[in-house]
């Protein structure tokens, strides 16, 4: 699976809708994305909603979203995440997640 690391410069002028369109276009093409400037919980929920509109049981089952906030932004204290990973649904799995470390396995 191809993995795209997207810098915050690439997303900072995008609206939520534009970000979601970009994410879904890539993920539907079997690309995993790592956003340097992560999605807020509200943006993640919007992505969830748009993903549901695009699910086609035989071709696209949805996405996996993993946010990694770092030690100071865990536990709902902040609404902005520092890193978000989005992958085609069922293609990645969290091996370990602590405030200081996130381990992900490609399936």
């Amino acid at each position, binding site marked *: 699976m191809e993995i795209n690391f997207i810098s915050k410069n690439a997303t900072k002028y995008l609206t939520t809708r534009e970000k979601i369109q970009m994410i879904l276009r890539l993920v539907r093409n079997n690309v995993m994305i790592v956003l340097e400037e992560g999605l*807020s919980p509200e943006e993640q929920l919007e992505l969830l909603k748009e993903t549901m509109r695009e699910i086609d*049981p035989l071709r696209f089952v949805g996405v996996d979203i993993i946010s990694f906030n770092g030690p100071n932004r865990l536990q709902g204290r902040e609404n902005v995440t520092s890193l978000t990973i989005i992958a085609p649904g*069922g293609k990645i799995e969290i091996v370990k997640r602590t405030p200081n470390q996130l381990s992900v396995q490609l399936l």
Partner: protein
Amino acid sequence: MSWLLKLFGRKREKELTLGIYGAPNVGKTTLANRIAKDCGAQPQGIISEIPHETRAVEKVEKLHLNINGRVLRITMLDMPGLATKIDYREFVKYGLTEEEAIQRAKEATKGVIEAVKWLNKVDVAIAVVDSTKVPYDQINIMLIGTLEAKGIPIIIVANKIDLAESRPHLVKETFPNHKVIPISALTGQNIEKLYETLAKLA
């Protein structure tokens, strides 16, 4: 009149729209049925081990909950479970035919969209978390973060405390800035605490 209310305390009756949110199979419908029963209404939700049993918002109106002399007039919304992916093959594992599983997956996607849309209309949200699982889950993070951002009062329920593997303290540690009530929606254990918290928030 309002100065009288201020003088003599809070209004004794309050109307509210209560949304019950969470991931699939955390016990939302069991809780909704418990609340309905405690309000003297007929439980309506169907409970199943197959994920996404609730695929449309189940609305129960005119529930009256009396908590220490305070009456809450509740419109309760039992929401479909939130998910980022819905794979019909998961349903096949539970014995559904492929056709039934695909149909269920299609209905489930619509249910999730509906649940997200209703977020703007609830006065108080109960976020149900399965206390037998790791609470730092992406659905919980995005749900609770969004409710915080929208300024909607939240009660986090650490459900399934009747099970031996339940670890409600982990839910409290994960969400230290929120009121977390350990309950068993199935047995009713500690449900009064949830109602008291609801009365304080409403």
